[in-house]
């Protein structure tokens, strides 16, 4: 069974059909996806900025990370659930969509960046938890994370514009029905 075959099977599942064909499910799933992304992005950026010393290095990094990252993970779980639902509804389209593949690779990079930070860089946190700037590696991880997540949001939004044929030069209402 090749990948396209798998995508076809996924699309034909009860859940895929349900999301694709009911009038209200897809809109609310995509709204949930936005709320989840907003929380993931926002909480991660606050932690990343703290690594970069913004607004300052005064407060404990571990305290901030403890306060925020649990919400990042909860929201990430919702982003994955809503994302999978959207994928199932149009699996054959997403599977062959270059921007979708780019987004998945960027997510993987963000995950690796986070893993390396949690696995290695965080070990010495005692020395820079508060009052002093974070070391260069920690700052680099923060900056890279900000860049990756901004890219993920942009690429994610762009997927919606590449799913269907290019904009025809006709009535706005009809034309837009196609993308969304």
């Amino acid at each position, binding site marked *: 069974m090749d990948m396209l075959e798998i995508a076809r099977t996924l699309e034909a599942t009860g859940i895929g059909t349900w999301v694709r064909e009911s*009038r*209200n499910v*897809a*809109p*609310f799933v*995509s*709204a949930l996806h*936005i*709320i989840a*992304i*907003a*929380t993931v*992005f*926002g*909480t991660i*950026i*606050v932690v990343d900025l703290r690594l970069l010393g913004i*607004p300052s290095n005064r*407060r*404990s990094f571990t*305290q901030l990370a403890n*306060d*925020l990252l649990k*919400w990042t993970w909860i929201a990430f779980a919702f982003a994955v659930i809503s994302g999978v639902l959207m994928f199932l509804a149009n699996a054959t389209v997403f599977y062959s969509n270059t921007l979708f593949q780019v987004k998945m690779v960027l997510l993987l990079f963000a995950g690796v960046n986070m893993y390396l930070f949690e696995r290695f860089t965080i070990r010495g946190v005692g020395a820079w938890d508060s009052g002093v700037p974070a070391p260069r590696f920690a700052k680099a991880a923060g900056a890279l994370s900000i860049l990756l997540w*901004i890219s993920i*949001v*942009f690429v994610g*939004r*762009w997927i*919606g*514009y590449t799913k269907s044929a*290019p*904009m025809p030069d006709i*009535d*706005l*209402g009809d034309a*837009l*029905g196609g993308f*969304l």
Partner: protein
Amino acid sequence: MTGFANWLESTGIHLFFYDNYATILPAVQSIHIIAVAIVFTSIFLIDLKIFGWAGRNMSLIQTVRRYGPWVWGGLILLVITGIMMILTEPTREFLDPGRSSADNEYWNLAFWIKMGLIAVGVLVAVAFQRHLRRNQEHWEQSILTKSRTKMLAGLTLLGWIVIIVMGRMIAFPAVFSGGGA
């Protein structure tokens, strides 16, 4: 409303956005989403502090000073990108183009509910910040501990969630009209 939308569609700035539709609109929407993230997370973190679930090493006023400016900065970014989105597709934002006809206009309910809730949300935020600034000690010692305060914080957070949902629903007027997708 149809007249106003039609007038906007005759302006040069609309034509510029519309002619570069496929490049400008997704970029503007992406910035809008990032600004939503900034505003929503900042409000969320202030509410977590009010719930007592985060920021225990900070006072409420410190938390508001830390995240409040991000709320207002993010809101400015939202207004700018929001206006750009309206200028690109005024009819689709204000009206339900699928149902509206020459003599019968249907408003895009999600858009107008969203605008109304934003007005309420901003008023609540301004009132909260003013009251906190003037009654700092009272807030830290008494108001913050009341369960009514936490309930109100939860309610405003819910309000902002509804605003985000309504924003997404602007693209799906059929959810409200019950018509075909």
